[in-house]
């Protein structure tokens, strides 16, 4: 049986060598090609820019998926980024404002430092060379003008602010400059010191003491001021007032208790 099977198979292989006719092949392949074109027509959608790039359905699905992901990402990210953006803008604005104010303060601070140093130098040199002092005063003229304006403003709010600090008295006396210029310079120093240290504005000494150069007082007024200082046990202020009083009224003989309390001999 096996021989029979093998013989028949061999015989079949020898004889069964017919091949499909070429006409049949062409016919079938044409049918298949037409069908394939139909598939291509169904699966392909032309690009809206003008049939330049054929996009298959799978491509459109990919593009659509990518767009969905982008939209979702934006919808998540935009609310997260908007608030910090506004905050950062406001922070930037505040930084800009702060930096501007810092700049102004810095400029003022530098200006005051320069002026203070200049004034300090002037004070130190005042006793040695009045001419140099006058030059220094002239060189700081713009500063002096602005200082005078600030003094005028502060005088409007606090009328007694123009009074000079006791320390300034120490260099006002030996100056050879005209009294008005000296007074202006003293005011400028006072105003600068007040601006640098606003606590000086509330000083009772500054409020109560008025220099003789600005408003000459009568002997009775001096006596009243000095007695008030002594009653208040403000001996330092009283001593300065006595000195000024003695300068304005050198013939006035001081009471003994003044000499004891104030050591003004």
């Amino acid at each position, binding site marked *: 049986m096996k021989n029979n099977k093998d013989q028949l198979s061999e015989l079949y292989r020898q004889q069964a060598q017919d091949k499909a006719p070429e006409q049949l092949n062409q016919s079938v392949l044409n049918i298949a090609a037409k*069908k394939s074109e139909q598939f291509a027509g169904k699966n392909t959608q032309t690009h809206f820019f003008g049939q330049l790039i054929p996009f298959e359905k799978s491509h459109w699905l990919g593009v659509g998926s990518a767009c969905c992901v982008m939209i979702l990402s934006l919808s998540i990210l935009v609310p997260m980024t908007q608030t910090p953006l506004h905050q950062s803008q406001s922070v930037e604005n505040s930084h800009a404002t702060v930096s501007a104010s810092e700049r102004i303060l810095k400029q003022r601070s530098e200006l005051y430092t320069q002026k203070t140093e200049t004034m300090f130098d002037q004070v130190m040199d005042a006793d040695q060379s009045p001419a140099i002092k006058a030059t220094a005063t002239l060189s700081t003229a713009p500063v002096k003008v602005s200082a005078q304006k600030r003094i005028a403003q502060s005088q409007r709010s606090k009328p007694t602010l123009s009074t000079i600090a006791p320390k300034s008295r120490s260099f006002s006396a030996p100056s050879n400059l005209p009294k008005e210029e000296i007074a202006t310079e003293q005011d400028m120093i006072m105003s600068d010191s007040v601006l640098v240290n606003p606590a000086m504005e509330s000083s009772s000494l500054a409020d109560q003491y008025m220099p003789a150069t600005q408003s000459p007082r009568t002997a009775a007024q001096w006596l009243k001021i000095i007695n008030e200082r002594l009653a208040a046990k403000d001996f330092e202020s009283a001593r300065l007032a006595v000195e000024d009083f003695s300068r304005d009224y050198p013939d006035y003989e001081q009471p003994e208790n003044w000499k004891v309390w104030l050591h003004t001999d």
Partner: protein
Amino acid sequence: MGLLATLQTLKSDESLMLAYQAGKFSSFEVLYKRYKDSLYRFFKYHCAGNSQGAAHAEDLAQDTWAAIINRVEHYQATAKFKTYLFTVARNKLIDFYRRYGHLENHCDSFDDEAIDNDRQYRKSQPSEQEQQLHQQQLLRQLDKLPIDQRQAFILKEEGFSVAEIASISDVNTETIKSRLRYARTRLKQLLTAAEVQL
């Protein structure tokens, strides 16, 4: 042959069919080249006893391929493509026999009458034709087999397994084995009788 074409030939029938389903015509070309001759032979040897056998075989092959192409949208790779192709081919053949009445004319079993008829047929043919028939005795005798035995034999010689033939013929494997056994016995007798006659 390019690299792409070489890769195409390495693909399975099913993947090629799915690729064609996706619109790749080249996949179908590869698939067609694999089975065009065996399918054509399947039809031709079934119609070997008919003078228009080759023409019928060509028509039947084209109908079968056309059916495969037209149903490609519905193709699912649940079975072997080869089995699917020849199942369609078998159905086409059955339709052909029913249409032309050949199915009833073929005997379902071996008998001496068939051999006698064959002898009478060959006696009436010219010597040149006898020579051609002599050269293709087996194929000539195939036409004398019952259609199921002939179909099983042809498919088996075209490389199908018993299980695949059973699947194509929609019967169990034991039936196919029986048909194959009967077909070989019959062919042996027919060939022996033909040789004696020759």
